[in-house]
């Protein structure tokens, strides 16, 4: 029975057997939760252009689950993202792009979808490390903070964000974020359009043309929002940061008193503040020595 032998040898793997369902899950996770999350995330960040208060209030709301937040982050964002990215790399490897031979717009979109996927993966890793830190163990966070990662302090959201963007001469991170965010927006919008084919939502060429219009409009709106989010984090100056921090501190203290903000000193920007105060102290000290008679303490 050599036939049955060779059959049992090449028994399809779990992945091969369930490839259809797994790839549908890949398509789904790209939209919910990942795409939807990205829309909420970018809109929240764009609110920093409105005022420090609006942004900080949104971050307080996001952090209101307190100890449950890591569970939400990992279950709703990081794990779906890792799944989507891992399978995405595999999918990209199953194809051979030929958009230089067949220069149709949709074929170029196919190739860009793969490239923006790779860019998004690298960018999101950097982004999570740069601001979030990944795992919120104190030793880890302190260690990576020293090399410029894990910079975000949710209870000083605006100020720590602006400070973090200013690392690296204030040009490297803004450049990375601009490219990365736009790649993510393209990947999401184009993925949304192709998901309509995958799931059979828009079938006729007319329906597909309408879907294209809707997706382009959505893409334009999302691009504007993402540029607003980017500008809100990149443009404030050093002086603005101090003002922002004062507002955030006032909101934190008032929030703790009123019970709307969970008390948590780890989520405040104590490290950044210490550094800022040191430099302020130093300049104050200089002024003191040259100007007033106050004794230096």
């Amino acid at each position, binding site marked *: 029975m050599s036939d049955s032998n060779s059959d049992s040898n*090449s028994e*399809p793997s779990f992945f*091969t*057997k369930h*490839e*259809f*369902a797994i*790839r*549908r899950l890949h398509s789904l996770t790209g939209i919910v939760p990942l795409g939807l999350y990205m829309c909420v995330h970018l809109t929240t960040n764009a609110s920093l252009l409105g005022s420090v208060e609006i942004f900080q209030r949104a971050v307080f709301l996001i952090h209101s689950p307190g100890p449950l937040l890591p569970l939400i982050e990992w279950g709703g964002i990081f794990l779906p993202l890792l799944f989507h990215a891992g399978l995405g790399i595999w*999918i990209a490897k*199953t*194809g*051979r*792009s*030929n*958009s230089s*031979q*067949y220069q*149709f717009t*949709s*074929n170029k*979109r*196919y190739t860009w979808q793969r490239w923006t996927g790779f860019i998004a993966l690298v960018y999101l890793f950097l982004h999570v490390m740069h601001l979030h830190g990944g795992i919120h163990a104190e030793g880890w966070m302190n260690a990576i903070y020293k090399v410029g990662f894990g910079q975000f302090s949710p209870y000083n959201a605006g100020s720590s964000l602006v400070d973090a963007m200013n690392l690296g001469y204030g040009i490297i991170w803004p450049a990375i974020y601009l490219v990365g965010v736009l790649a993510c927006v393209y990947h999401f919008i184009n993925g949304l359009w*192709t998901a*309509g*084919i*995958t*799931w*059979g*939502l*828009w*079938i*006729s*060429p007319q329906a*597909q043309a309408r879907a294209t219009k809707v997706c382009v409009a959505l893409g334009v709106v999302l691009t504007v929002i993402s540029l607003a989010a980017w500008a809100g984090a990149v443009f404030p100056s050093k002086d603005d940061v101090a003002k922002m921090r004062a507002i955030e501190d006032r909101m934190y203290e008032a929030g703790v008193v009123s019970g709307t903000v969970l008390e948590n000193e780890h989520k405040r920007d104590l490290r950044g503040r210490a550094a800022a105060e040191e430099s302020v102290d130093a300049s104050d000290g200089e002024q003191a020595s040259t100007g007033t008679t106050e004794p230096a303490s």
Partner: protein
Amino acid sequence: MIALDPAANRPQFINVRVKRQDGPGQEPYWQLFKIDYEPELNVISVLQRIAALSKTSDGKKVTPVVWDCGCLEEVCGACTMQINGRVRQSCSALVDQLLKDNADEIVLEPMSKFPVLRDLMVDRRRLFKALEKVKAWVPVDSYYNMGPGERQLRATQEQNYPLSQCMSCGCCVDACPQYNKIELERKKDETEEEFKKREEKAWDKAFVGPHAISQAMLFNNHPTGKSIAGERLDALTAPGGIQACGNAQNCVAVCPKEIPLTTSIARAGRATTIHTIKKWFEK
């Protein structure tokens, strides 16, 4: 057209660059041929001139270029090849049009996704095996007269007719970035049958291609053909099924019959979605 325009400068010669290959698995190489210009040639007649000449542009005597053709009116698909980098039928590729786009030369290559047998002739069996996989037929094997078939609505007819024009030429799969070439070599200790089995297994696991998806939709929309609609959808969700589609939409762009393949794929996407969910709850 250059041919009908007496004022236009007619070229004296036509340069034809052909990608040749002496046999399966061998290294391809290029040869340049130079034939006298004649008005209103198609690529088939160019290949006939080259065969008659059997001489490269530098005068070297060579074996005639091998190609495949059948109907000569773009309904059989046998003469499909890459002409100036684009997959199409050579019978309907008019030389005067080609020279308008590129006056210097015409470049002929075999299809890129099928094993080359020789020169421009390829082995397209995998293409037809995919049609078997999705059962692209109407099941009417019966001893008994089943009576007249169900009447088809005009709307259904109009939906089906374009899909029925598919001639299985393979342009769609040749341009598809998700459809990769499978070329196996027979092992020394393998019988012909064992090799064929191994080959079919490899094809079965790989992407079926847009043509098969479209044909599955055609027969699922047929009053008698739809009796095995579920089996076709099972085939489309099996390994190598519709999930391998990457939505590059080259298929619909290169299809010589202008079959709405993206529409078929989207229809199959919806049908497989519903079919899979139904099956999951009925298990």
